[in-house]
């Protein structure tokens, strides 16, 4: 067998193994989604409040309200994700499945966009497929993909915006593009960018990347479109702020100014690199190539700006999800690097670095160069295998996953007996990922039973909205929002405390005692623990009035 053929076989085997690993991760992800879609309660804290935002919007009400007034509820997220789901509320009522399914579909669209971008630039189908699947294989994307949360939909819009922008060929490009097509792509990108920003505020970094690239390529268009974009985005912002009496600003901006925990940011950065290091290195190499030897693409600029989003993961209340944009950008760059290595499509500008490189190459033996080139191809493909092995997350039971777990000698390293996660844990990393069990559902219904029925005439004070939804009671308070505003000096809990002291709530449900300290103190003084019910690895505390008000209130 010739040397060339040996290398070809090695490359094919390496790519096949990487693909098998990625498909395995996809199967885990689909199974996880299928189980979550059926789970009727909050799986991740805060999902129920996003459902409540959707319900309020479906009733023509803004979720940006005065937190000092009953029901002490407001949202801290922009409305687009919830607006998109409003028709489902009209059709199916308050349910979790459609929000989780929407998140899952958003990740598939993002993966497809990543694959499309890599295919468009490199014409390497296997690498394009690997790059798209690598996005879905990430522990972080797996975590938050199929949740009733807006973050991953923001990442979808961001990715679509950047991929669309990259499709616009600015003069003097060797690839001619019809002016109409370029404008359409640019407009599509701008619309996606606006959608990303009104899905979650964090998209601001991608807005920066988008216009930075546009400014480099076409300053006039960047200024014109930038002004237009600012006017439209600002007008929407102003309109919502006016129609909510300023509550939009308070809840979207003020409530998101939180303490920055450096230890959390560093822990997450280390964890991120430990899991994604193989592809992150490829992405950085590609970024360096463009920086020194070619022209900067929108992807590389986006990669740089996405690091700012990732750095914000140190904020209280933030976490691993803040790396999702960086992961999408990283997958594209890693795909571009691998695709260029395999196809040899590199083009080097003439400068001191490329001249030095050429001089070094000239001194090398042809045989050595051939083997080094082959090794680079196989090694680059093998990086996807390393990544696939680094991010393993797996349920430990069941006929398929149980067998795989046994074969790999995997044991639980999480708080769940039935789930392995290579990520381990660090502050800010969500302790989720396990498949919710039938026992979790049964225990959730037990908490619903403890909440009582609307007939008792008293609302429940719960740190998760699902139980009140299922019991047919109003959603009262968004505890983390109250805490953020309280810590920033923008929330006076006096009215809520007065209601607690008057025992106007039939029950209090704690998940993590999120409420501001004075509220917690009032609850402890007036309510007592009657049950602790486990669900999804958390102990939910059920508290009832210390002296039953049944004979006082009625």
């Amino acid at each position, binding site marked *: 067998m010739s040397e060339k053929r040996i290398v070809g076989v090695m490359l094919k085997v390496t790519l096949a193994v990487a693909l098998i690993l990625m498909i395995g991760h996809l199967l885990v992800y689909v199974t996880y989604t299928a189980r979550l879609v059926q789970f009727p309660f909050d799986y991740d804290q805060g999902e129920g409040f996003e459902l409540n935002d959707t319900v309020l919007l479906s009733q023509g009400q803004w979720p940006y309200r005065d937190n000092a007034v009953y029901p002490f509820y407001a949202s801290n997220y922009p409305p687009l994700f919830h607006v998109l789901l409003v028709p489902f509320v009209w059709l199916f009522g308050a349910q979790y499945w459609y929000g989780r399914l929407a998140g899952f579909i958003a990740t598939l669209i993002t993966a497809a966009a990543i694959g499309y971008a890599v295919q468009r630039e490199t014409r390497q189908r296997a690498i394009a497929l690997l790059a798209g699947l690598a996005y879905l294989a990430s522990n972080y994307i797996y975590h938050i993909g199929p949740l009733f949360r807006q973050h991953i939909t923001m990442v979808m819009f961001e990715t679509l915006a950047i991929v669309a922008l990259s499709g616009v060929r600015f003069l003097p490009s060797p690839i001619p593009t019809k002016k109409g097509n370029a404008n359409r792509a640019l407009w599509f990108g701008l619309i996606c960018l606006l959608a990303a920003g009104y899905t979650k505020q964090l998209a601001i970094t991608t807005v920066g990347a988008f216009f930075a690239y546009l400014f*480099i390529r*076409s*300053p*006039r268009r960047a200024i014109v479109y930038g002004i237009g974009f600012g006017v439209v985005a600002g007008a929407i912002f102003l309109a919502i702020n006016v129609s909510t009496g300023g509550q939009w600003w308070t809840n979207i901006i003020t409530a998101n100014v939180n303490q920055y925990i*450096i230890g959390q940011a560093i822990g997450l950065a280390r964890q991120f690199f430990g899991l994604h290091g193989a592809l992150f290195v490829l992405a950085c190499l590609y970024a360096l190539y463009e*920086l*020194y030897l070619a*022209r*900067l693409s929108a992807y590389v600029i986006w990669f740089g700006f996405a690091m700012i989003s990732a750095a914000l993961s140190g904020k209280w209340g933030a976490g691993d999800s803040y790396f999702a944009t960086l992961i999408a950008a990283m997958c594209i760059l890693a795909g571009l690097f691998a695709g260029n290595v395999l196809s040899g499509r590199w083009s080097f*500008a003439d*400068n*001191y*670095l490329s001249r030095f490189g050429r001089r070094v190459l000239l001194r090398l033996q042809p045989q050595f160069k051939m083997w080094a080139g082959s090794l680079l191809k196989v090694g680059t493909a093998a990086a996807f295998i390393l990544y696939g092995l680094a991010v393993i997350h797996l349920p430990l039971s069941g006929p398929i996953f149980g067998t795989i777990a046994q074969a790999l000698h995997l044991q639980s390293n999480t708080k769940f007996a039935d789930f392995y996660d290579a990520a381990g844990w660090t502050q800010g990393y969500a302790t989720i990922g396990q498949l919710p069990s039938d026992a979790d559902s049964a225990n959730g219904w037990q908490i619903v039973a403890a909440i009582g029925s609307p007939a008792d005439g008293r609302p429940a004070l719960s740190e998760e909205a699902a139980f009140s939804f299922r019991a047919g009671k109003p959603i009262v308070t968004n505890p983390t929002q109250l805490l953020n505003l309280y810590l920033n000096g923008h929330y006076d809990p006096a009215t809520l405390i007065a209601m607690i002291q008057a025992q106007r709530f039939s029950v209090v449900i704690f998940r993590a005692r999120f409420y501001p300290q004075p509220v917690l103190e009032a609850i402890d003084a007036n309510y007592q623990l009657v049950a602790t019910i486990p669900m999804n690895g958390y102990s939910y505390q059920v508290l009832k009035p210390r002296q039953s008000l049944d004979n006082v209130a009625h």
Partner: protein
Amino acid sequence: MFTNFTKRQLGLIFVATGALGVIGVALYSVLRHHPIGAYQAAAIAGSVLISVIGATLIPLGSQPL
């Protein structure tokens, strides 16, 4: 209008950004009477790295960004 941004310009921006980073951290420590700890040292190292990258870009001259 400015249609050809160059690697040299980017290099200069990086050098200036890195220098500002170092000055910023130093000023913060002086004004707050805060000794330079591990986080500040890391911030200074990051700023220096940005400056070094910028310095290596300057010789690329008028190559388009």
